């Protein structure tokens, strides 16, 4: 894999949270490269540092020590505004609790991100296209409270990928979904990876979800305890639903 294909490059990454005199070491020297087109699952027990790693990779939080380059940008050098710009233009986010704007419809939620990016008049058409591509056209005019959790999360994915980001980060995207909706969501994300070459990094506890990953990184106590790339026949895909759950 060439260096140019490396979207995330973490070297000896640490993150310490301080609350008064108490220090919590969330990451203790993580070294990890993620390359374009990978579909990476970050697994590990609660408190192992999965969310922290995603937050750092998503420029949502700052590194305590170590080096972190995302899409060629050294995050330790970026200020608040540059980080926001990176998130807006180059990264997509899917959150565990969906976090759609409750007062906007599905289409408006997608359109909102495009508007923030400065997309002009065609943002409505583009948001409609994204929803159509993902089979969400029937939900376009519904507000989040009028949708199920699974539907909301699919709209959240549509929002995340509307600007065609190279890297999509998803923190426990299926945690609030039942098995069926979790599978629908993963199928959708996998299709985006296969058809549009997007790179996904997602954290999860769910073995059925892990089955879709092309690579599984296991975190334990803030360290990478395992990093396994998988062959195509090990990966669960829409056309290969019987693949074994993997971990």
């Amino acid at each position, binding site marked *: 894999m060439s260096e140019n294909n490396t979207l995330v490059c973490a070297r000896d990454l640490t993150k310490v949270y301080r609350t008064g005199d108490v220090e919590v070491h969330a990451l203790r020297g993580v070294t990890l490269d993620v390359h374009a087109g990978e579909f990476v699952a970050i697994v590990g027990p609660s408190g192992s540092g999965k969310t922290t790693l995603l937050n750092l990779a998503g420029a*949502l939080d700052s590194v305590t020590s170590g080096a972190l380059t995302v899409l060629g940008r050294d995050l330790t050098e970026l200020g*608040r505004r540059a980080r926001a710009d990176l*998130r*807006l233009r180059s990264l997509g986010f899917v959150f565990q609790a969906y976090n759609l704007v409750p007062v906007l419809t599905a289409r408006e939620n997608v359109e*909102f*991100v495009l*508007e923030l990016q400065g997309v002009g008049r065609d943002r409505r058409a583009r948001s409609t296209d994204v929803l159509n591509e993902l089979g969400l056209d029937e939900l376009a005019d519904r507000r989040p409270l009028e949708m199920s959790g699974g539907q909301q999360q699919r709209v959240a994915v549509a*929002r995340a990928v509307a600007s065609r980001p190279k890297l999509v980060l998803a923190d426990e995207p299926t945690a609030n979904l039942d098995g069926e909706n979790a599978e629908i969501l993963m199928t959708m994300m996998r299709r985006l990876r296969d058809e549009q070459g997007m790179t996904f990094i997602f954290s999860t506890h769910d073995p059925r979800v892990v089955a879709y990953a092309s690579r599984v990184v296991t975190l334990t106590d803030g360290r990478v305890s395992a990093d396994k790339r998988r062959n195509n026949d090990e990966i669960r895909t829409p056309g290969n639903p019987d693949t074994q759950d993997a971990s």
Partner: protein
Amino acid sequence: MIGTVSYKYALRSLHGHTRRTILSVIGVGVGCAMGLVATSWITGGGDMEIRAATGSGAGHLRIVPAQWPESRENSLRLTDWQKALAVVEARSDVRAVAVRARASGLLAFGNRTAGVEMVGVTPAGEEASNRIVRKAHIEGRYLRADDAGAVVIGRTLADRLDVELDDDLLVTLSGRDDISRAMLTVVGILETGSREIDGAVCHVTLDELNRITGFEGPGEIAILLDDNRHIDRARDELAQAVPEGNTVITWREVSPEIATGVAADRMFTRLLIGIVVIVVLLGIASAQLTAVLERRREFGVLTALGMKGRQIVSLLMIEAVVIGLGGAGVTLLVGGPVSYWLATSGVNITRMMGNDLSMGGVLIDPVMYGSFGAWVVWYAVGVSIVSTLGATAYPAWRAARTDPAQAMRVV
């Protein structure tokens, strides 16, 4: 950049928190309504005080000898006063003109005496420009242009001297060369209700005063304008046109004690309004800050999606403008009728001041009116929006600095 979806977002957020929005709108509206009513009252009251001061003889403007502002010497006379008068009368913004001279002296009747400032007037000009003459009850009559040896005095002065109509008074004045004396017949006793004013009024015709003192011409030309907002402009224009040796001063210089009183009144009331507005603003700011803290997770998500600080500030400012507009509506709904009532019905201040309606030698109106006009709408909209934006500034700044990772950890 803020676009249509952001506007929808802001408006629907307000709609989604109806109770909070309504309370904010009412808070802004009631606070601004208090400010509106107070402003109406001050503006109307200030106008009334200026009207009273300028209409009680001072005039909006006064042409006086160039040395007068410094010396306040009554023996000074205008240079080429006919030309100065012609300049004044040629203006279209002049409502009334009074030509006068003054002399300090003593009135005596029997064994009683009283010190006075005798004013030599042109009766027609005085009746047109001096509300003390116009509004007072006069026993007998006021002066006529052709009166000789006639004097009109105030009721208090008459009581002090124990004189009645047709009594003859001995007047002793400082004349041009020496002390001058004359006998004057009381043709009118003027009663305003103010002991202060009624104890000071002593009018003769200008010709009579100059005949007694030996001076020539008037010492002042008092000018009432149609509109007191143009005093300074008219003063500047007149100052260029009056003959050399004269100067033009405003009522503020003629009656500095009243001008100071008016300014002090305004400052005090503005201070009160300021305190009220600050308290209201702090209330709104507190409510907005609470709202921002409640929405911390929401702002965290927006920040995570890449929304920049200024875009979050803009979003909250849109909400603030809408609250401000709602507040303007409440301001007009609550403050408008009260201001209108103040402007049309007024408040009878005799209950507070009794019947002595004078202040610093000025005859004030028994009913004080507020001010009302199109400015009420601009005031309501402007103050409501500006104050809401001001009160939202800090909460918006806080929202703009939301740490996304930290905010989203809060469930």
